[in-house]
């Protein structure tokens, strides 16, 4: 599995709390280590979203700078750096897609999704290889339509109304696909949301 070395690398060495503290102390070397730990994951996600490696490089740089500039609001003891980084990366990439496509939507929701405080009390080692494999397996079990809407939501940041416009399907149909897809993912992943 190509992702395995990366995921193993994330497991090794100083944990997120220590690294976050050093980032808050403005140690540039800590940023270098953060990049070494998560750079490939961030780059892969952004390339998947914008599908342009040159633009992805700019957005990766923006992502790490944004984290560097906002890390003082991050709870080093409870926070999860990796998920926060990915949220910032996704938002930067989707913001680029929206700008490039003159697709305007309320930016408040995106801002909210990357607030540092939103990444407290996550489970440890969230990007373990077996967890990612479970998510991939759960996605593979979805129908083509269900997988499409989940990908449009995650990788393109489309609302359900925008998905209906994009796919030419009635909004009600889109909502049904989204709800059933999310329910299926929850059932497969177990503890995603409490009952």
């Amino acid at each position: 599995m190509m992702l395995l070395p990366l995921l193993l690398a994330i497991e090794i060495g100083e944990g997120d709390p220590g690294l976050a503290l050093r980032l808050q102390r403005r140690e540039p070397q800590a940023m270098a280590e953060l990049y070494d730990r998560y750079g490939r994951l961030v780059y892969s996600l952004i390339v998947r979203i914008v599908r342009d490696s040159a633009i992805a490089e700019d957005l990766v740089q923006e992502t790490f700078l944004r984290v560097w500039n906002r890390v003082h609001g991050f709870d080093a003891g409870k926070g999860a750096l990796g998920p926060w980084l990915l949220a910032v990366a996704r938002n930067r990439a989707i913001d680029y897609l929206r700008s490039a496509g003159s697709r305007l939507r309320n930016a408040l929701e995106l801002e909210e999704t990357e607030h540092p405080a939103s990444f407290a009390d996550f489970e440890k080692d969230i990007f373990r290889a077996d967890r990612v494999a479970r998510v991939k397996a759960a996605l593979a079990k979805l129908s083509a339509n269900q997988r499409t809407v989940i990908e449009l939501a995650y990788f393109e940041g489309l609302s359900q109304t925008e998905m209906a416009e994009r796919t030419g399907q009635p909004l009600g149909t889109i909502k049904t696909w989204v709800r059933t897809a999310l329910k299926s993912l929850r059932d497969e992943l177990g503890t995603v949301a409490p009952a």
Partner: protein
Amino acid sequence: MSCDDLRDSYELYALGVLEEPESGEIRAHLERGCPACQSGVRGARQSMALLGATAPPMPPPARLGLRVRAAVAGGRGIRWSWAPAWAAVATAAVVAALVFHAREQHAADELARAQAHSAAHTRELARLNRALDILNQPDARQVVFGAGPQPPRGRVFLDSRRGVLLLASNLPPAPAGKAYEMWVIPKGGKPLPAGMFQAATDWTAMHVLPGPVDLTGAGAVAVTLERESGVPQPTSQPVILAAL
């Protein structure tokens, strides 16, 4: 709405793609401290983070790491882990290699700066396009604020489909670690955060809240000085208050 009603929306909320009024309802519900829904949204955020990790792995180019390091170092230089080895180099051959490397590094830095410059221009253009998009709406509402000579003055343009545009002058740059935060304030309701911005060195500012905005019942647009990372509710008196 009850927790059961909101449960199906956790992931969409975590993704930032939930639409109003559901988005506002779940936000208000979470602000009331519902532990079940807070736990549910946290679980959804974890799942969404894992979705990001399913992107096909792509190795970033080596120069990208240098760019990130250079951007953070901000010209102050970085203590590279291999720097001590350089200090030990004494032979002319290695010196030559260092010179070559320095030239290559310089070129990479120049390229990084040019790319960052270009990206900044693209973003600024997108921002201006958003502002023009609001200004071009024939039905956009316009409100003037700050009639006196001293306070910040300017105009707010509001369009329920396109967003809110704030143009201000006589607004001093925020102190270090601070930024201005715009709010849309419903009549009798809590201010809704509408984004952070900075004033330019000539004491002017332009801020856009793009996208659909619920302006029914909105009583004012305000700006307060807050910490740079933003706050969920204002903590200081408005420096700009435009009554609608």
